[in-house]
């Protein structure tokens, strides 16, 4: 499964990059009451609750490793999760681009493999769930970003958030 898209953050690239590496911020931002802890440089582990269509919400173990980090431009994210109803694993590439108005465009492309019951039963819904979760997560990050910017530095209202593709 490929999940890709673009998202505009109303803030400077350095700050966006920093937020994206902060386990506390990520825990807050991820839907499904994620709990993430840093277990090494760029390595996080935790859990998340996700349900897909007819498949009951369940606790998934989650590990995330950031690789090929080029602050504040890009990194790849190795994701591995498994739960009683299946697993997902794969890699996402994240590229941050500075835009002249001071905001940051994030381009992401994740190639995820989904397995187990969630693949066999939830197939029709997986794409939608992945897109929805991505959007919820990015919107939450965006809110966090705005909260952290000093009031004076807040750029004008951001353009509407791009639909994750």
């Amino acid at each position, binding site marked *: 499964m490929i999940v890709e898209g673009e998202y505009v953050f109303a803030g400077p690239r350095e700050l966006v990059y920093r937020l994206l590496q902060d386990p506390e911020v990520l825990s807050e931002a991820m839907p499904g009451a994620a709990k993430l802890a840093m277990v090494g440089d760029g390595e996080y582990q935790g859990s998340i609750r996700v349900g897909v269509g*007819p498949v009951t919400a*369940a606790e998934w173990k989650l590990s995330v490793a950031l690789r090929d980090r080029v602050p504040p431009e890009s990194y790849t994210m190795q994701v591995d999760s*498994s*739960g*009683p109803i*299946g*697993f997902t*694993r794969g890699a996402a590439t994240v590229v941050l681009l500075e835009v002249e108005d001071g905001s940051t465009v994030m381009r992401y492309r994740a190639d995820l*493999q*989904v*397995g*187990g*019951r969630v*693949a*066999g*039963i939830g*197939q*029709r819904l997986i794409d939608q769930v992945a897109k929805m979760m991505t959007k919820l997560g990015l919107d939450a990050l965006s809110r966090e970003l705005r909260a952290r910017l000093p009031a004076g530095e807040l750029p004008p209202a951001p353009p509407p958030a791009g639909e994750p593709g």
Partner: protein
Amino acid sequence: MGRRYVGERVRRNEDRRLLTGHAMFVDDVQLPGMLHLAFVRSDHAHARIRGIDASAARARPGVAAVYTADDLGDYWQPGPLLVPPPPVEGLVFNEATQVPLARDKVRHVGEPVAMVVAESRYLAEDALADVLVDYEPLDAVVELEAALAPDAPLVHERFGTNVAAFVAQRHGDYERALERADVVVSRRFHYDRGAAAAMENRAVAARWDPQAEDLTVWDTTQAPIPIRNGLARMLGLLESQVRVVAPFVGGGFGPKIMMFYPEEVLVPWAAMRLGRPLKWTEDRHENFFATSQERGQVHDAEMALTRDGRILGIRDRFLHDTGAYDPYGLTIPINSQCTLLGPYDVPSYESEFRAVFTNKTIVTPVRGAGRQHGVFVMERLLDLAARELGLDPVEIRRRNYLGPELFPHNFDILYQDFAPLYYDSGNYLPAMETACRMIGYEDFREEQRRLRAEGRHVGVGIVSYIEGTGIGPYEGARVTVDPSGRVRVATGLGTQGQGHYTAFAQIVAETLDVEVERVHVVTGDTREFGWGTGTFASRGAVVAGSACHAAAVAVRGKVVAMAARLFGVDEEQVEVAGGRVGVRGFPERALTLGELARHANPLRGAVKPGTEPGLEATAYFGPDHGSTASGVHAVVVEVDPETAMVEILRYVVVHDCGRLINPLLVEGQVQGGVAHGIGNAFYEKLVYDDAGQLLNASFMDYLLPTAMDVPRVEMAHMETPAPMNPLGLKGVGEAGAIPAGAAFAQAVEDALPEYGLEIREIPLSPGQLFELLEAARATSPHLQEAAG
């Protein structure tokens, strides 16, 4: 003379129990103290197991035990090879049978890794999440050709290849045929198959009785006796200490054969170990992964013909997906290889196949068992040749049928029973003519033009097939006249809805001249009858039916001899009729069969030397060759080229399964088979992604045909009696499913002649048909205008 029952439309003896909900299926077994099982199954198609931590699951309240491969000790053994490869020269076979619980590696999604035993199924399933399996995912082998690439990951490292088998067979001289040919048609074909999807999932229950020292296993198997024999061997018990009961079974269709599935092997073992009765019932989701399936083949085939459409020879090279293990040997691809020749006179044939391991559920026979793959390739080649030669599809078949004078007919290649491919009897042209008449073939073109003028696209497809049925090795039956006057029949087969309780009763009733309702048949209980193989390859009625007949004839002999002694007359004067036996011409000198049975089992006086007590006989039947059933399917479809929806307007089957025991049952078998075939042609496909994950593992996404999708089947019977058995029987269980894909493809092409479609892939989903139509439009601008 006695009443005739064989050949009559007799209502079934077993129906009352089934209709009132009292028939016992395996999941209905409920015993005091029974524990329930659930299995931890792999989520990965291919992964190394780094470790398993079951401690939390073991500590959970209500959990009696958790077993992993390491807990099985010496009992952990790969399962038996069920069918060894045939003795073909140069054959390669890499044997890899399934294991009870994966130890180092998992090789398909759903492979069992651990077994949880708990006080209820709910508690057992709760505990599954507590078994932590640490996997190291490996790249999966999914596509057949990719599996053969030099750098492909290996399903079984020890072979150094994913090739499970290689078999080459030939008959005649194909190279010479090529030299003489005016036309050679050569194409690639894909034929994929789906789940058997019996409405009842699998189930196994077991009870060890320490006082009697015996084990009872209730199993949804088609072959209880081989399961009994195998379990006794594995568990170190005498065969007499193991009783396997296959009670009412909710559909078999192949995968419930003697598979020695992990659950089948583990439930009895754990019941003995824990000293508690156990039960495991598969749920539908598990069934999509854990029950064997049939799957794809890719054929590169060519046919050499003369200008006037006579086949000179065929060459076929194909790949066969065998899934992660190959316990059922080569039955499916051998069936494909042999059945391809069909009812035709093919002077030369070269066929070779490679069976390929992939990281998918095990492949074993499903109704048709590879025969439809062969039929599809043959019938498609004939259609393409006919198109190239400007011949009518019926005409090209007509020119190539084996004539009735050519029987018995031998091809120099080996069939699944390891005997040379042998056609015992057949009469093919009249079946085709009957089908043409029934479907109105002659007038169809006119009708087609008329409907076309109204903007409707209809087409006809008409194809032939044969099916080798009724193979050995043998079955047996015991027939007993009960003192009540009812007749008991026991045979070793399993029954999954075929109507054996009635068909065998008819055979025995006719021989002993009693009412069919008074013949009580038992199948599928090894304690009732302990010799036999099982229900597969459309052989039940033929082989066990012949054994029932032989046993009934022997009982009749005893009845006559005993009555002659009793009445002091010659045997020729004894008459058996209407459940009574007496002296011909003296109605007062007669006994009921029950009274005679009591005389035959005296409490005083001697049983004479050379005689036996009771009116009972056991007999066996083992045919040297199977018997060749055949038929023609004709279908009319309507296609909407805009939406790619296909509607079946008519479906005609002309079928020859030799002498009919009960037309009602035969028609039911054929109707059900056609529905299965239609599902396979248009609806049912197991969709795997690149990682070997099955994407449609529920009835929400994997579509079985419903009452809205299956047409009424119009049927005619031909009866070319089989010379190989006394009743002239041929099998019928699989026939309906075999040619449906080929007929469907021809009809869809015929409905849209201007598109020049070539349907070379089954199942043909609406989506795929839409793509074919789009591709045709892209290359032919006039179609776009026509469509617009």
